[in-house]
């Protein structure tokens, strides 16, 4: 199994490396929104001293941390998997004795992540110099705790995206469904604003949904903004959502593959 992953890594890394020019465009797309939200909220905080307990520096560190956490916990399954179902090229992967989603697609995602983090690093340093965030509230303990938190966030997000993308077995409109899923994610994950600034009902619902585990929870954990109870609550939510997302993905996948009749067959 280790050898399989090693070989998959070599193939997928080489593949991603080929597209490094596209990576710059991807990063540009990815950067613009958080930087704009950062600018909007720091300007509001600066004019009022603070917004709902968030100071200017809180907003700067939140969005600067978001840039990194989002790279680590997000995935590109939709873009690398949906078309394989549609044009039938998945057939070749299905006859292999390894799970297409949990091996090849997973490794491809990680290779993309490694490359985009490499590309992001110099840009992040420039933004650091421009915005001058004060990271003095971060402790080593928080950093250490954030590693399992981000791992949980990535795995749960990966499985849920994999389940949504697997709807491609049923419908060609999987891109529209994903857009809807993405909007829900945007609302409840803390991508737009830190969740405490959201309307109360959104905050309440977000607590029970898995989306904040990918962004809001790890970010606030790193920044040392969570109380011990909130940290335990977050990890518990993660441990609860993990089996749910595993079950959901397995179910959608099993039914989907059963329905799948490759193009041309």
């Amino acid at each position, binding site marked *: 199994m280790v050898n399989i992953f090693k070989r998959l890594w070599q193939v997928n890394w080489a593949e991603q490396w080929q597209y490094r020019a596209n990576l710059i465009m991807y990063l540009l*797309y990815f950067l613009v929104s958080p930087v704009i939200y950062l600018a909007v909220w720091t300007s509001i905080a600066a004019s*009022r001293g603070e917004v709902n307990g968030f100071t200017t520096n809180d907003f700067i560190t939140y969005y600067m941390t978001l840039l990194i956490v989002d790279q680590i916990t997000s995935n590109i399954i939709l873009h690398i998997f949906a078309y394989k179902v549609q044009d039938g090229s998945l057939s070749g992967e299905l006859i292999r004795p390894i799970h297409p989603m949990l091996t090849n697609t997973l490794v491809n995602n990680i290779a993309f992540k490694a490359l985009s983090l490499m590309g992001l690093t110099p840009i992040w340093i420039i933004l650091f110099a*421009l915005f001058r965030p004060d990271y003095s509230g971060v402790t080593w303990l928080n950093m250490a705790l954030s590693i399992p938190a981000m791992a949980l966030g990535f795995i749960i997000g990966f499985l849920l995206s994999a389940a949504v993308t697997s709807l491609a077995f049923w419908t060609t409109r999987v891109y529209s469904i994903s857009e809807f899923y993405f909007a829900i994610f945007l609302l409840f994950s803390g991508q737009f604003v830190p969740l405490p600034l959201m309307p109360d009902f959104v905050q309440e619902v977000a607590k029970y949904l898995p989306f904040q585990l990918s962004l809001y929870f790890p970010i606030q954990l790193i920044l040392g903004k969570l109380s011990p109870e909130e940290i335990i609550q977050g990890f518990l939510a993660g441990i609860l959502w993990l089996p749910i997302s595993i079950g959901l993905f397995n179910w959608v996948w099993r039914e989907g593959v059963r329905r799948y009749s490759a193009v041309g067959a």
Partner: protein
Amino acid sequence: MRYFRLLATLLKVNIQMSLAYRADTVVNILLNLMWLGWELLGLSIIFNNTETLGGWGPGELIALLGVFRLVNTMMAALIWPNTEKFNQSVRDGSLDYTLLQPVNSMFLVTFSRITVWRIWDLVLAFILIAVGVAMTGATATAVSILNFVLLTVSGTIVIYSLWIVLIAFTFWFTKFDNNVTILQALLDAGRYPVTVYPVWLRIIVTYLIPIAVATTIPLQALRGELGLGSVVTFIGIGIASFLAASSVWKVGVKRYSGASS
């Protein structure tokens, strides 16, 4: 007149093509409404926490959202589909047929593909602008509304001209087919008044990729912040950039020698 008839014909062709995907049209409009709801929720979150954003009130930001959506619709309904077709036609040489038509080639390249359902988006944009302007109430005068309309048109022309220049580059560098991505990536900056951005970002979206010329500046005119001098200047910039883009296009077409030769 001839060009209006031609435009009507192109629109008819595109409507016929899109009729094959009726269900997709419904889905797209629903998603579009969802994003509108999301954008309005975003604005309400902002104004729940503050009275003004960089001195701008809710009405002004709704009008700005309308203007932003106008530009965004131009991107989605014309610029993207036509760029795709154009890049393809430069690569495989089918651009020859476009150039051989007895019609202005820039016109044909701009309007040959139209994403028809986006007309709905245009309606929404106008509603947002009207609601936003009405909400600003007493501060808007007849003159400022006129300036606002004129600058929205000229700002949109500036972005259109930039697009023409970007795709004309393909005549020199055939492999330049990422041409419009940079425009789309920075477009999001048009959602908020650029006056709240840090200086470096403001410079990028005002001078380098002038999204602000089509979004923030018309709104500043509506707020009565621009004197007659600046209004005339920005209209002049609109006309100048269109003329510049047309001449870059003409030089580019002269350079073009087909795909096989």
